[in-house]
């Protein structure tokens, strides 16, 4: 018996949240001149692309978009039962003196973002690194916070957030589900 879970955001709400984040990024950086959006693989990459499209419409400017795989920077490879596949990283411009906005789907412990910041630093010395996430679910283990948040969702560690995106899963939807161990 699997519970369908609770829908946190529907397609229309995801669209609005991303649109608001795009406005906030432009406002915070006083324009879009030196912005580079970097999506964290896998779900962050399509989100970064969508944010770039919104910003391009707002500002009539082309925003460089990269994708970053953080597998080789993880701090838990020793603990994992499996070795995760290394996916593509593609950074189209030199990041030195740019305002880099990291984009991810869910902010949780903060360890992925720590790894992503280390990776970004290997491509140059950005002026700033900012963080945009669709969901902040709490339970941070590192001193990291997001600059742009789609929705704050209080969760228990025994729950999982399932994100479905048009690009990868055929529809936009975010669902909160109990994990098998956490299920009653």
């Amino acid at each position: 018996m699997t519970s369908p879970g609770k829908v946190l955001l529907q397609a229309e709400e995801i669209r609005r949240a991303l649109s608001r984040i795009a406005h906030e990024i432009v406002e915070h950086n006083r324009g879009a001149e030196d912005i580079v959006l970097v999506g964290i693989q896998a779900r962050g990459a399509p989100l970064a692309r969508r944010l770039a499209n919104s910003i391009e419409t707002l500002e009539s400017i082309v925003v460089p978009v990269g994708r970053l795989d953080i597998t080789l920077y993880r701090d838990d490879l020793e603990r994992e039962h499996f070795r995760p596949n290394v996916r593509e990283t593609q950074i189209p411009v030199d990041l030195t003196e740019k305002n880099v906005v990291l984009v991810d789907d869910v902010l949780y412990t903060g360890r992925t973002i720590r790894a992503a910041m280390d990776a970004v630093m290997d491509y140059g010395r950005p002026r700033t690194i900012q963080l945009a996430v669709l969901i902040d679910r709490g339970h941070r283990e590192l001193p990291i916070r997001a600059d742009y948040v789609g929705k704050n969702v209080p969760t228990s560690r025994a729950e999982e957030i399932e994100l479905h995106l048009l690009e990868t899963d055929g529809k936009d939807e975010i669902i909160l589900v109990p994990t098998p161990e956490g299920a009653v």
Partner: protein
Amino acid sequence: MPLERKDLLDLDDFSSEEITLLLETTAAMTEILSRPIRRVPTLRGKTIVNMFYEASTRTRSSFELAAKNLSADLVNVSASQSSVEKGESLIDTMRTLQALGADMLVMRHWEAGAPYLAASWLHASVINAGDGWHAHPSQALLDLYTVQERRGAIEGLKLVIVGDILHSRVARSNLWGFGKMGARVVLCGPPTLVTPDILGIAENLPWVTISYDLDEAIADADVVMMLRLQRERMASGLLPSLREYAARFGLTQKRMRRARPNALIMHPGPMNQGVEITPELAYSEQAVIEDQVANGVAVRMAIFYLLAGTSERIA
């Protein structure tokens, strides 16, 4: 899918899925080599021992760079043949390495099977960097990657391996690697260097055929892999003369025209230019010999990444 094995000894027992995983991981590693800082912290705190019982420049330095790019600690041990006895002392050396806390061992040995012995004794992962005439799996993987990068896929291609098949671990590992990925392999050389054990391999593996005539073998080839001819083969009477060998089995422009128009030319190095290959072909558009060397580092990074920690997980 993870790689559920501790060691890389040869490709004969690899599935095509496992080889595909290695090649996909290699593609991700090539991106690191294009960055301003070619180093990731993945294997920080891991110790890799490079143990070469046989001379090698390119393979040893390729493994060394791969280890350093992943931030592993590297120890180079060049064991000279004279100071090491066979059998028991190899096991003694393994015990010492175990006690020193090596996580992975890269081993080249003049004796076929030596890395298998090491793998059975060591808790650490063992990577075969060439054992006797038997196997050289990391070379086969970089050859596969180089062809796939140029052609998109291996399946359906015709590979011709030319020269001293008998003494070639590169040929033996490649016939497994290319075969598993769906290519046809033709082994071509003089009868003295394509001996009964090679004929036995060809009988058992449906994708392998034998030819003693390069002009015939090269027809419609997609990839032509020339092997290095070692000059001591003349002294031992296996070949009459270099000139005769070059005339019958050397790769020339005239012969190359019989292959497919955009066929690739490979060589594991070091080359005898003017013997197995003409200099014009070695530096031609079709030659991917320098790509092979460059891809070697990325392939070995992929091997280290996928094998690291497997010994704990499997045990």
